[in-house]
């Protein structure tokens, strides 16, 4: 909990301040790139960040590293991630797993008599 609180406070500090009245690039961008209502996005992202951080930690990420990972996301990415974390593909495949799957499929098709890859299979009658 302390971690989450600290993170949300850090994020408040990260919000672009009206520094000396300088108009930030992203304010000009609001109408140009496809990020729609940037104020709403920023607020949603602000609430999303501590949640993502907690979810990452729950999925085995080191807490200190989780904070840095969340900080590297932009607002739109944070919004997307918080809603779809488990639905998103996680590129993972180990090539051996793939080979194993291919082996089993070919084995089955061999046994069905559709292919003839392996010398030791005999099609079912």
């Amino acid at each position, binding site marked *: 909990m302390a971690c989450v609180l600290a993170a949300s406070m850090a994020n408040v500090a990260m919000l672009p301040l009206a520094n000396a009245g300088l108009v930030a690039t992203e304010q000009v961008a609001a109408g*140009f*790139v496809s990020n729609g209502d940037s104020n709403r996005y920023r607020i949603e992202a602000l609430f999303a960040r501590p949640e993502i951080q907690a979810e990452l930690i729950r*999925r085995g*990420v080191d807490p200190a590293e989780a904070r840095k990972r969340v900080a590297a996301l*932009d607002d739109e990415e944070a919004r997307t991630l918080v809603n779809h*974390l488990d639905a998103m*593909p*996680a590129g993972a495949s180990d090539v051996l797993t*793939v080979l194993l799957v291919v082996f089993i499929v070919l084995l089955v098709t061999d046994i069905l008599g559709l292919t003839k890859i392996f010398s030791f299979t005999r*099609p079912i009658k």
Partner: protein
Amino acid sequence: MRFDSVFGARFPPLSGVFFILACLAACTAPQTRALRDTAPSEPRQVELTQTPFFPQSDFQCGPAALATALRAAGIAVDPDSVAPQVFLPERKGSLQLEMIAAARRNGALPVPLAPELRALLVEMGAGRPVIVLQNLSLSWAPIWHYAVAIGYDLDASEIILRSGRTRRLTMSMSTFERTWARGGYWAIAVAAPGSVPASVSEPSYLQAALAFEKVAPPDQSLLAYQAATRRWPASELAWMGTGNSAFRLKQWQVAESAFRRAAESGKDPVPALNNLALTLEATGRIDEAIEIARRATAAGGPFETTARETLAELLARSAHTATTEKQ
């Protein structure tokens, strides 16, 4: 034939399924076919043989692919250093958005590419390898995999990848297209600040630059925006980003000329004029600053309030300076 007796006579619906499967296997994927039919202007063969190779350890294709692309962009990392930044232990994999965020953390601009094989060819032709997400299996039983596309051969209709434990994997372009389509046509180019990927559009590059500006030191975001002004000289946003990054670095001359260009380029000159006024003030040209700020307030629009605040502040400072000088 046994095939008929098993699948035709006894299970009539299955024979239809196998017929469709046979057809699917025989036809070429659509984009591959279009490439074959239209003879694109890209070189027929490309292979970026200098691209480093990191054989992946278990489930670590994300870190391996990311490290490969970052190294190719001249950023010294290895899979072990990026793994903690992207790997999600419970999912035994890496999420696309975290791949993007981690590239940014390591000082590069990750730019998503258009969902077209052509975009990959253009990038490789320009010497830049591309990270792709594939689903090697079927959509209902996905096996997600990140690989780095490093070349192709249009005559042989093949793509060349650094993939998993294989240094040089050649895959039929059609098969690649299908696995890539099942991965949502996801591909990113990883650029060192100062270079713009060959195939990307102005909005997608600038969106990447905006996200980069928030986490990168200003000298790096300056490089990224300056590169954009060279590619798209009429881009208001590229000039604004250049100006703001230069302002943060106190490179007043660079900031001044960038804001002047931005004011000419955009539909709404107020943000650029506002920032130009502050730049001029920072270099002690208070009268010019006030004149520019007046122009900004006169133009109106959504940034009018900011411009008015800036003008008020400049007038107050000018009055303050005048009184101190009198004393």
